C-alpha cells in the first residue's frame, strides 16, 4: 500500500492542525473586524439573542439557521471559520412582525456561527453557536 506524502499529512492529526491553524487565525481576525464595523466598537452584551442552529450539519452546503432578538433593529450573522465570515445582515422595518429571520447557510467546516443584534436603544447583544460540519462521508 502506497501512502503519498499528502495522504500522510492528512492522516497525521498533527499535520491537519498545523495546516488549519493559520486559516482559523485569519478568519477570526476577519470576524472581529466585521463585528467592529457593525458595532463601531461599542460593548456587546451576552444574552438577548436566540440563535438556533443544528449541533451537527449533515452537509455544510445547506445549514438551517434561525435568529431572533426581541427589540433588535438589525442582526448581523457571521460564520467565523469560512474563508470570509460574512453571511447576512437583516434589517427589520416598521412592518416587521418580529425581529427574527430564518435562512440556510454554507459552512466550510466545523465552526462558530455568531449573531450580533443591534437594539433600538443602540446597544448590542451577541450569541454564538458551534456547528459541527460532517466531512468525509459518501460523495455520491
Amino acid at each position, binding site marked *: 500500500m502506497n501512502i503519498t506524502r499528502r495522504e500522510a499529512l492528512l492522516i497525521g492529526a498533527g499535520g491537519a492542525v498545523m495546516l488549519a491553524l493559520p486559516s482559523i487565525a485569519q478568519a477570526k481576525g476577519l470576524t472581529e473586524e466585521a463585528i467592529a464595523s457593525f458595532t463601531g466598537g461599542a460593548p456587546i452584551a451576552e444574552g438577548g439573542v436566540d440563535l438556533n442552529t443544528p449541533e451537527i450539519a449533515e452537509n455544510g452546503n*445547506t445549514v438551517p439557521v434561525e435568529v431572533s432578538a426581541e427589540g433588535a433593529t438589525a442582526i448581523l450573522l457571521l460564520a467565523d471559520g469560512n474563508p470570509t465570515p460574512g453571511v447576512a*445582515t*437583516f*434589517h427589520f*422595518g416598521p412592518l416587521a412582525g418580529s425581529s427574527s429571520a430564518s435562512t440556510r*447557510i454554507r459552512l466550510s467546516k466545523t465552526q462558530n456561527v455568531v449573531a450580533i443584534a443591534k437594539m433600538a436603544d443602540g446597544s448590542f447583544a451577541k450569541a454564538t453557536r458551534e456547528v459541527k460540519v460532517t466531512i468525509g462521508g459518501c460523495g455520491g
Partner: protein
Amino acid sequence: MAKIKPRVKVPSKAEAGEVITIKTLISHPMESGQRKDKSGNPIPRKIINKFVASFNGQEVISADLAPAVSSNPYFQFEAKVPEAGEFLFQWTDDDGSVYEAKKKIKIG
C-alpha cells in the same frame, strides 16, 4: 438550470394588525467566487446580494447577503399586516438584475 424563479408563501388573508409568517425561496446558484472550473480558472462570483420585502411601500425586512448564503436562498420572517394590500419581494443579483414577486392579502 439557469432559470431564476422566486417562490413566496403568504397567507391569502389576515386580521387587521395580525402578525403573519412569510416564506420565500428563489432558484439561484449563489456562485460564491471561491470555486474553480475544470481548467482551474476561478468562477466569477454571482450571488443575490440583497433581499427586500415590503408591504404597501413600507419595509418589512431587508437583508444584505454574502456568498455564505446557500444556493436557492430561503428566508422566513414575520410581517405585520395593518390593512389589505400587496407584498412586494425583490431579490437583487450581482449582475444588477432585480427579480420580483408580489402577493396580495385580504383583511377579514
